[in-house]
C-alpha cells in the first residue's frame, strides 16, 4: 500500500492504493467519481478515457501509482461550477450524440483532446480519432456531428432532423 496525491478536476486528491490499483479504480472507488466508466478489459472501448497532464489516456490501462503527482481531468470537471455544460457537452445534447450514456464520458473526453490539438477537424479526422471509443447506441452519426458542431463548423449539410436551437 502506498499514498498517492494528484490534482483531480482542479482539486487536490489523495488516497491509499495498492500497486495494482488502476487509475480508474482510484477515481471511482476512492474518490467516488463514478462518471468514468469501465466497458472492457482490453483497452479498446474508451469509456474510461480521462486526461492525465492534459493528454487523453485510458484510465483502465494506467496504474494509479503512475498518476502520482499528475493533473487528472474527468467528465465531472467538464461543466462550469454552476453546472452549465461546456461547448462539447452542450453539442452532444443539442445533436443527440448519446443514448444510453455509458460511453459518453469517454467520448466527451476524447473529443476534448481532439479539439485541443485540432480545433477544426474534418469528418474523417473525427472518425479516426474515435478509433479507441466504442459506442453501441448511436452508430456514431450524431457523435461525429456533435463534435464537428462543437468545433464551430457548420453541420447543417449533414443529414438529420435536428439543428441546434
Amino acid at each position, binding site marked *: 500500500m502506498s499514498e498517492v496525491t494528484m490534482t483531480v478536476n482542479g482539486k487536490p486528491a489523495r488516497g491509499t492504493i495498492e500497486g495494482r490499483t488502476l487509475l480508474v479504480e482510484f477515481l471511482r472507488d476512492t474518490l467516488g467519481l463514478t462518471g468514468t466508466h469501465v466497458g*472492457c478489459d482490453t483497452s479498446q*472501448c474508451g469509456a474510461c478515457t480521462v486526461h492525465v497532464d492534459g493528454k487523453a489516456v485510458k484510465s483502465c490501462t494506467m496504474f494509479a501509482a503512475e498518476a502520482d503527482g499528475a493533473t487528472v481531468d474527468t467528465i465531472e470537471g467538464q461543466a462550469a461550477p454552476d453546472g452549465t*455544460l461546456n461547448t462539447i457537452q452542450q453539442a452532444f445534447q443539442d445533436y443527440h450524440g448519446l443514448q*444510453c450514456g455509458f460511453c459518453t464520458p469517454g467520448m*466527451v473526453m476524447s473529443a476534448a483532446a481532439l479539439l485541443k490539438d485540432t480545433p477544426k477537424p474534418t469528418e474523417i479526422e473525427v472518425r*479516426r480519432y474515435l*478509433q479507441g471509443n466504442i459506442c453501441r447506441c448511436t452508430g456514431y*452519426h450524431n457523435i*461525429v456531428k456533435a463534435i464537428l458542431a462543437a468545433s464551430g463548423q457548420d453541420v447543417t449539410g449533414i443529414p438529420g432532423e435536428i439543428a441546434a436551437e
Partner: protein
Amino acid sequence: MPKDNAPVHGGIGASPKRREDVRFLSGTGNYTDDINLRGQAYVHFLRSDIAHGKINGLDLSEAEQMPGVLRIFTGEDFKTAGSIPCGWQITDRFGQPMQEPRHPILCETHVRHVGDPIAAIVAETLHQARDAAEAIGLDIEELPAVIDMRAALEDGATKVHDDLASNLCFDWGFVEENRQAVDDAISSAAHVTTVELVNNRMVPNAMEPRVAIGDYNRGTGDSTLYTTSQNPHVIRLLMGAFVLNIPEHKLRVVAPDVGGGFGSKIFHYAEEAFCTFAAKALNRPVKWTCTRSEAFLSDAQGRDHVTKIELALDKDNNFTAVRTDTLANMGAYLSTFAPSIPTWLHGTLMAGNYKTPLVYLNVRAVFTNTIPVDAYRGAGRPEATYQLERVIDKAARELGVDPIALRRQNFVTEFPYQTPVAVEYDAGDFHRLADKLEAKADLEGFAARRQQSEARGKLRGLGVNCFIEACGIAPSNLVGQLGARAGLYESATVRVNATGGITVMTGSHSHGQGHETAFPQVVADMIGIDANMIEIVHGDTANTPMGMGTYGSRSIAVGGSAMVRATEKIIAKAKKIAAHIMEASDEDIELKDGKFTVAGTDKSLAWGDVTLAAYVPHNYPLDEVEPGLEETAFYDPNNFTYPAGAYACEVEVDPETGKVTIQKFTTADDFGTVVNPMIVDGQVHGGLAQGIGQALMENCIYDADGQLLSASYMDYCMPRADDMPFFVVDHSNGTPCTHNPLGVKGCGEAGTIGSPATVVNAVVDALQSAGHKVDHVDMPLTPLRVWSAMQQG
C-alpha cells in the same frame, strides 16, 4: 403525425433536447456499478474453461481458508432452488412440447459451455475472491463437446443434456398445414431460387457490462436486487416465483440507469438470483460486476441460424411460395425467450412485404455446448428479412430483372392484409417507401458513382432491401396461444400533483431510448401543457406498476398507449371537477392548451386550478368522484404493429484486399406517428450500425472444442466511428398504426432488421460488376471472406 403539424408545448412531433443527457454528460448518471452498499461483499464466479464435462468433485478446503473468503457456493447450495425459467414454450410439428432442460444457478453435475458457472466465491474484496477461485480443486472429466448443429442432430451424438432424449429442442413447422401445398408449389414452379446461408452469431455487447447487487434486510425480511435490466418487473416475477421462491411483495428489483441492452438485458440470469440468494444467506450485500471478458462468456448471444431458403416464382415473376429449412442454435440452456425467437418472431415475418400466398418454414432448434442464444436487437425478424431479401435479390439476378421492380411487382398493396403466416398487417404503403428511397438515395446517379469508384480502382455495388417487422409485442391472449408464459401488456400510473405537475410511473424501462424526454411529449400534447411539467419514473418495482419492460420496439406502442389510457382517465376526472367548479355539465367541458372551458361561455379554469382542487377538495364533487388525481391503466394491444422500410446501400470493395467500405446508406421507414423525430433518427442510426456490424465485421466463433475464439474486442470486431458513414434516414411517410391510440409502430429495431441484407446485396452487386461469379457470401463480409470469394469466382 405529419411534420407540418406544428407541435405544441414540446408535444408530439417536436424534438426537444433529451433531459436525461444532462446527467449522462456530466458524469452524474447512476448506473448499477455506481451503487455501493455499506458492508457489501464481492462475488467472483469460477467459470468452466471447457465446453462440456462431468463434475466428479470440487475441493473447496484450501480455498475456504483463503484470506477474506466469506463463503463458497456450489450447485449443492441451490438444490432446492428452481431452474432458471424459460418464458416461452414451443409446441412442435407433432403437437409435443419442446424439450426443456433444467438450468441451475450454479452447475450441478455437468458443465455445459465455456463460462458455465461452477462455483461462486464471496469475499471481502474482489481480488480475494479471485485468489480463492484459483485454489479450488476441480475434478472435472472432460466430455466431447457438441458445437456444430448438424453434428449435434446426428444419431449417437453426445448429448448436451443426459436426461433429454436428444439435442433437438423442437422441430417446428409453420404453417404446418401448408407443408404439402408449399412442396407442390415449389415442384411445379416456373423458377425456383435457392440460397443457403448462415445468420452469424452475435455478441450483443451493450457498452455497460452486467452488474447485480443483492441486498437483504433481516429486520423486514425484504430482498432487493439492483440489476442491469430492461425489465425489472419481469426479473422480479421470474426470479421470485420460479427460482428463489420469494413473493413479489418481499422482493424489490431496481434497474437504475442502464447502459444499453439490445435484448441481452431482458433475460433473467443466474448471477441475479445468486446475488439475491447470497445476500440473504450471508446477511450482507453481495455485488457482482461483470468484466467484458466474462460478458463474452455469460451474456446470452444472438442469431446463429443456418438456413436454406427457396423462393418459387411463376412465369411472370410472381412469388408463389417460400420454403425454408432452418437450424437454430439454442446453446446449452434455454434462455428466457430463446424458443420464441426462431419461431414466432421469425416465422410470422416470412411473407415479408410480399403477397406470396404460400409459406412454410421448418425450424429445428438445437442444443449445443455453447453459450445460450436469445433475443438480440431485432430477434428473429432480422433472420427472416435477411433470408427473404437475399433470395429475392438472387432471383432478380438469375431472372435478369431489376431487383426493385421484382419487389414492387410482388408488394402487398391492400390493407389490412392477412398473411399466410398468421399475422394481419393493419397498415402500410410499400410503394411509397420505395418511391421515397429511390429519390432520397439518388439511385439514378448510381451508374455515375460506380464509374467514379472504378476510376479509383474500387468496385462499387448497390444493394436494396425491403422489410416489415412485427413490433409492439403484443396481444397477451395471442402470445399465450403461441406459448408465451407471460402477458405482454404494459402499464402506466399518471399522478397529477396538486400544483399541476405530473409524475408518470411507467412499466417501460429506458436504457438509451429517451423515454424521459419522449413520454412527456405525449402527455403534454393531450393536456396542452408544457412537457417540462411532466416527469417519468421507471426502473424500480417499488414505485412503478407491474410492467413487462422494454424490448421488441414496444415502449411507445404499448407503454405509451398505457400512458395515453391513464391520461384519458385523468382528463375525464379533471373535467368532472372543472364542471363542478364552473357549475356546468361534464359534457360541456373542453380542455385545450391546459385550460378548461365551458362550451359556448367565457368561463374557464386553468389546469392548475383543477389539480389543486383535486387535492384541496373544498369546492368539489365529493359525492361523485374521489379526491386526488391519479390513474393507472394497463394496455394490452389487439395486434402487433408493423413498421416497414426500404433501404439502399452503396459499398466499395477494394479488389486487392477484399475490404468493404460503406459509401452511402439511405433509409425510408414507416414508423407510423413519430413522437420525437430526433430520437427516432438516433434509433435508426444505432440500429444501422449494428446491422452493418453484423454484415461486415461481427462474428462470434467457437472452435471445434467449444472454445470461444472471438472472446474479446481484440477478436470480436465492434463497429467504430471510421467504419460508418453519415446516414440518410427518412421516416416522413408513416402510415399510422390503426389499433393503438397514438398511431405509433416502434422504431428501435428497424435499422438492425433492414440493413444486413442491404449490405450483402450491395457487395454481391459489386463483385458481379467485376465479373466475379459470386452469388452469395456469408456474413460477416470480412476482408478475408470477400477476398476468398473473389479468388474462387
